[in-house]
């Protein structure tokens, strides 16, 4: 109990100290990692835990970015209200999409979610009057309690707490009946159904939460980039999020954070090789899925095990 409070205390202290220790650019990077991790967390829930492959994540992210921006510019809804509202809407869309899993799985599900992403992206491009068409649209800055939050240093105080809150929430839900049901469904749908689980409802709920998390993450990403480009919400981007999930580790929420940190920070180290970034990410994905399909998050505990085992052997 004391240890847990100590961890919380250290976490809060680190959160408050970071703005004084790091430059604004680094705070922007932290925000980017946090928002991306939220998007990937959605993928961890639906693909990693429930075992339903989804290439719809970029569409959810796009809807989460466009929705609030349109509500704010055309209807005058404040962003702080529009973002959760839209996320609930996207979650509902995810639930409807999840109903498809009654009839399809595997390859066909991947294809259907892929087509969903393509359709959503095309509708962004072809609804010029509302979305700005292929040129994209600017995102108005977030105003909270009369303060305008525009740069990474200011958004830090909103994005990091939101991410931590949602991660704790998701972690707790996953350790409950819901998480165990998803794991059961991933391992064998037939067995889960025989045990009395309403498999379709759980799968649709997993899709709904991936939609909700993707939309929140997408809204936060759009606040950081301040501009929405429809080219960024296609199938390629869905594969990019999948790559983060695979490299980080698909079966734990921690993997979403590790993968996002890696994919956001690598470009910093490879600045002189900008044109090879895409290739590096693609090779990482290929390498991990063939050699280490459980990702980095699963390598940590195994490393600890291996080291302690070695230790024991030496002592003996």
């Amino acid at each position: 109990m004391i240890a847990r409070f100590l961890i919380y205390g250290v976490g809060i202290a680190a959160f408050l100290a970071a703005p004084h220790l790091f430059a604004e650019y680094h705070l922007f990077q932290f925000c980017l990692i946090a928002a991306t991790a939220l998007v990937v967390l959605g993928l961890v829930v639906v693909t990693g835990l429930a075992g339903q492959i989804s290439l719809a994540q970029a569409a959810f992210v796009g809807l989460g970015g466009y929705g609030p921006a349109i509500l704010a510019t055309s209807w005058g809804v404040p962003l702080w209200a529009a973002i959760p509202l839209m996320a609930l809407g996207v979650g509902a869309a995810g639930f409807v999409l999840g109903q498809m899993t009654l009839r399809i799985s595997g390859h066909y599900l991947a294809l259907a979610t892929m087509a969903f992403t393509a359709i959503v992206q095309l509708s962004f491009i072809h609804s010029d009057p509302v979305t700005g068409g292929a040129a994209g649209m600017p995102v108005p800055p977030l105003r909270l309690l009369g303060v305008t939050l525009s740069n990474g240093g200011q958004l830090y105080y909103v994005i990091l707490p939101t991410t931590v809150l949602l991660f704790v929430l998701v972690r707790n839900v996953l350790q409950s009946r819901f998480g165990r049901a998803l794991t059961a469904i991933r391992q064998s749908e037939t067995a889960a159904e025989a045990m009395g689980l309403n498999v379709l409802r759980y799968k649709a709920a997993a899709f709904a939460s991936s939609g909700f998390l993707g939309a929140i993450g997408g809204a936060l990403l759009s606040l950081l980039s301040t501009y929405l480009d429809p080219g960024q919400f296609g199938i390629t981007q869905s594969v990019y999020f999948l790559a983060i999930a695979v490299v980080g580790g698909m079966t734990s929420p921690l993997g979403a954070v590790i993968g996002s940190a890696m994919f956001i920070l690598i470009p910093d180290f490879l600045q002189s090789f900008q044109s090879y970034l895409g290739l590096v990410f693609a090779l990482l994905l290929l390498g991990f899925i063939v050699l280490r399909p459980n990702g980095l998050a699963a390598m940590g505990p195994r490393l600890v095990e291996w080291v302690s085992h070695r230790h024991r052997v030496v002592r003996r």
Partner: protein
Amino acid sequence: MLAQVLVSSATAGAVYALIALGFVLIHKGTGVVHFGYGDQVMFGAYLVLIGRVMLGLSFWPATVCALLASALLGALIYGGFMWPLRNASLLARIIASLALGTVLREFVRAYMGPNAWPFPFLLSPTAVPVAGVLLVPANLAIIGVSFGVLGLLFLMFEKTIYGKAIIAACDNQIGAGIVGVRVSYVFLAIWILASVLATLAGILVAPLLTLSPDMGLIGIKGFTAAILGGFSSLTGAVLGGISLGILEALPGTYISSALKDMISYSILILVILIRPQGLMGALMIRKV
């Protein structure tokens, strides 16, 4: 007007049929839906371009080199990734095939640049009026080559022992193994054949579309065609390709061209949901 639309859509349909055939070959034979296949189509066209620009070859030698190189690529994909993953989960295999496509696309983007390249037509692209319908020699060449290749494939599957071995291994791996078919060799042959088909489709389609790293998106059209045809029959794939070409050309001409792609994707979702066995496939019952 209608006749004109049908003639023009046959060009796209023929190419979709070629791509769908590659999907079906790989899926039926090895149980993998190759999500990177569209990118292999794109890569095939770039192989010709690389031969012409980097090695200074003329068109036909470059094409032959590209076909040989893509055969090698197919063998590499099978030996390097699909064979080691043969016992992995379906999810892992789907992601691996997506990753393979992404690697090809990003390789091209890094080495050939993100911009579009011009690509030569096989015949002249100027239209000739025949009986009130405008015919484009270049498009006719595409249709001709596609159907020629399709015919050759049918001959191979129907008349040669190799084709029959492939069909046997597709239908029943264990049974084919018992009667002396080396199933792993057959899989290798399927991957090589499908890669060569992809390159061929790429060479045919590149002048119609713009040759850029994102041309691989045409793969989705191939998926749609394959699903329309049932994803397990070779004849179905050909019919699916041609019907998709017509289905997307009609609203594209009469309603709005922006709708064209959306219609393909909607057909994809609808067919998956309503008739996953395709327009002419038989229903397969999955056993527990």
